[in-house]
């Protein structure tokens, strides 16, 4: 494909797709966009798409197209259907609703009110941009997600796809490209925040004719799903960025290392690579400029440590994913000993926009030390669960309350967890910290890849630390002793405390051991594994002390320290709790007072929810 051909596809297709981004687009055509991210797909969005198509065909309706798209972000309201150009936002749609949407909305121009979603404050939302969830967001990495069909390269081209690659190959030298990336201030979005331009520069400076480009899509932080959503919603954005980097550093081969647990993302990547090759946008002599670049997918198999760059390289080579000692860094000696440039998915997703809009534009967004935007996977005890992209420097309070809609069920905010198993907990007093790489570090957490889990006051912080340590013990590769044995010992101490067997001195032991593991481990996994312990100790020390001294868990989450009891005075013997109990732990004849057999009770609290007399309580 020549650059002229690319432009002609862009121009004709862009006009056709104008209604996707312009709510005043002229014409009678309507597009029904159906989210096909993992969340919505799990709740049957492919059937919704099929059903729409069936009805349209059956009724012979013209000027309507049904399109699959990537994630819209508001996953908790899925499956989501958006109608353009009206921008009507339908939530929790089922295949049975399709008939009504077509009949009312498409044929008669009325909205189907019962499928509109309610904002957290109770107002009925008609249009996408009326949702508080979207108001403070700025979408750069996610720009195309939810707008284009990720399986159709022409739609990507319509929205300036492969234009950045064409620009680099015709107008820019290798050093020009690297300078733009450096000047933009972009830092690695995988967690560590290393300046991306620097990395590119190092790899470019290496001698040698074989170099590699790698995309780290081994999103291992449980509760983080931004990389997956980018790959599912806009796979070409990543491919194009990798090709640009290939040109800039002198590499002609790229690998995408992606989790096998993400079948939809893998499938869309495969389709995207195939289409790009067919169009000559990957392969040999791209745009006739003598530049060759090819990309292959490599599957991971569920090892958190493979998100560490050198472990990832080992895994691509077909070995156990154990980290290598650094130096040498991958820029010098990476894949099969060759200079290798590794960036995370979200980092790649910013590149084409930086090339097209310029370094200054990008650097104007964000804070002094952290430029641009960051995508967070907002989850846990928050009303709007989903993907949010905000400028660096946005405060946690804005993300959790303005965008996330606050804490559900009338409970109180307790802590926000960032950085996954490597990060820390942020308590209420730091909610107004503007988030960037440096400010998070200062308050004892880290940016990490962007998981942001909100916790209400029903969560026990000691148990949370235990949960994360259980994770790191599972995922420690075993190469170095401090991590392999240290994390295990940390977990034992935490388990003991959660079970009410803690004793004086345990907290001091935890602290000492945590600091040693952090100081002596080989790779990032071990160095950061104690963070959940240290951060919870820093902000919630009194909960540890209560567990140890008073054998009390204030959140009533630690099972050994909690009892579910029936208030005999209030119990009417209605027997409902007994029927509801999944483990038959409740004893008592109908009409008689009931009791809970503590040895059987699993603290699921089903009985508490069932009792019509509120006679069951926990303590």
């Amino acid at each position, binding site marked *: 494909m020549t650059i002229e051909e690319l432009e002609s596809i862009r121009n004709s297709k862009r006009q056709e797709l104008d209604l996707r981004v312009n709510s005043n687009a002229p014409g009678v055509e309507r597009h029904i966009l159906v989210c096909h991210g*993992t*969340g919505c797909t*799990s*709740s049957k969005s492919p059937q919704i798409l099929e059903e729409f198509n069936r009805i349209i065909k059956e009724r012979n309706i013209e000027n309507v197209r049904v399109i699959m798209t990537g994630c819209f972000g*508001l*996953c*908790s309201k*899925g499956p989501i259907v958006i109608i353009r150009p009206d921008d009507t936002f339908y939530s929790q749609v089922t295949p049975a609703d399709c008939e009504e949407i077509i009949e009312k909305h498409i044929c008669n121009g009325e909205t189907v009110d019962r499928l509109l979603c309610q904002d957290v404050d109770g107002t009925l939302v008609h249009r996408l941009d009326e949702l508080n969830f979207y108001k403070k967001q700025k979408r750069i990495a996610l720009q195309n997600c939810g707008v284009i069909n990720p399986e159709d390269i022409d739609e990507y081209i319509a929205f300036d796809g492969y234009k950045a690659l064409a620009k680099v190959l015709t107008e820019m030298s290798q050093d020009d490209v690297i300078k733009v990336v450096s000047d933009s201030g972009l830092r690695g979005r995988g967690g560590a925040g290393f300046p991306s331009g620097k990395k590119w520069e190092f790899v470019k400076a290496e001698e040698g004719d074989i170099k590699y480009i790698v995309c780290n899509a081994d999103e*291992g*932080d*449980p*509760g*983080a*799903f931004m990389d*997956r959503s980018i790959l599912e919603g806009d796979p070409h954005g990543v491919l194009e960025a990798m090709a640009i980097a290939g040109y800039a550093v002198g590499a002609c081969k790229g690998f995408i290392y992606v989790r*096998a*647990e*993400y079948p939809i993302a893998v499938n869309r990547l495969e389709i995207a690579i195939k289409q790009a090759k067919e169009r000559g946008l990957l392969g040999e002599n791209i745009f006739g400029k003598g530049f060759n670049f090819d990309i292959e997918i*490599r*599957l*991971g*198999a*569920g*090892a*958190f440590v493979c998100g560490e760059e050198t472990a990832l390289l080992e*895994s*691509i*080579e*077909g*070995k*156990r*994913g*154990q980290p290598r000692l650094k130096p040498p860094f991958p820029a010098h000696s990476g894949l099969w000993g060759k200079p290798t440039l590794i960036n995370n998915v979200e980092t790649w997703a910013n590149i084409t926009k930086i090339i097209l809009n310029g370094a200054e534009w990008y650097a104007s967004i964000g804070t002094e030390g952290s430029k641009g935007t960051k995508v967070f*996977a907002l*989850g*846990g*005890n928050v009303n709007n*669960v*989903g993907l949010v992209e905000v400028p660096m420097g946005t405060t946690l309070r804005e993300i959790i309350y303005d965008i996330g809609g606050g804490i559900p069920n009338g409970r109180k905010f307790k802590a926000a*967890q960032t950085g*996954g198993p490597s990060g820390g907990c942020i308590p209420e007093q730091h909610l107004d910290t503007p988030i960037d790489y440096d400010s998070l570090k200062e308050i004892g957490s880290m940016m990490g890849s962007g*998981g942001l*889990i909100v*916790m209400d006051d029903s*969560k026990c912080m000691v148990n949370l630390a235990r*949960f994360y340590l259980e*994770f790191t013990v*599972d995922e420690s*590769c075993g190469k170095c002793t401090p991590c392999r044995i240290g994390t295990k010992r940390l977990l034992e101490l935490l388990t003991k405390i959660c079970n009410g067997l803690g004793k004086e001195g345990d907290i001091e032991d935890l602290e000492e051991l945590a600091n040693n593991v952090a100081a002596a481990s080989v790779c990032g996994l071990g160095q950061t594994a104690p963070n959940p312990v240290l951060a919870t100790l820093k902000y919630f020390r009194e909960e540890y002390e209560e567990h140890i001294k008073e054998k009390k868990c204030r959140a009533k989450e630690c099972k050994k320290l909690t009892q579910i009891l029936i208030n005999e005075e209030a119990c009417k013997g209605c027997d409902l709790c007994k029927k*509801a109990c*999944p*483990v038959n732990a409740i004893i008592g004849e109908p009409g008689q007072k009931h009791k809970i057999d503590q040895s059987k009770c*699993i*603290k*699921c609290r*089903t009985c508490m929810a069932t009792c019509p007399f509120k006679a069951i309580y926990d303590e």
Partner: protein
Amino acid sequence: MAEENLNCADQRCKDETLEICKKYEADRGHLMAILNEAQEKFGYLPKMAQITIADYLNLPLAEVYGVITFYSRFTTKPKGKYNISICLGTACFVKGSQQILDRAKARLGVEEGEMTPDGKFSIDTVRCVGACGLAPVFIINGEVYGRATVKQFDEVLDEYMKKD
């Protein structure tokens, strides 16, 4: 490996594994891909498949076994006809997936990673399937059940109990 007489099951496993192997060059870099595909085919990685793959890639069996045991997705134990995966990612954990796991173990009488004696059910845990918006989730043979409660889990399991 020296020629030997294999029983029918092993011979078939070997043939099928070889068929997968041949889609790839005999290069170690493809080991993970081959293992992923073989596991997809058999549901786990039988010993015969491991031997065949090691042979094909000219690697010691110990190396292949080492890689298999390193990655949590690979398993050398067969799974039940209905495999119940419970997500223990942070978002699901915060929303109570541990209770569902406890319930599954209590009802089926097996631990994580194990199969019921009749081969009908097995339980495993996964770390985040990315459906955090639906947390907590559990998955039975690829079907995702979201916004799960212990009660709903019980009802779903009852349905599967009735099946063959």
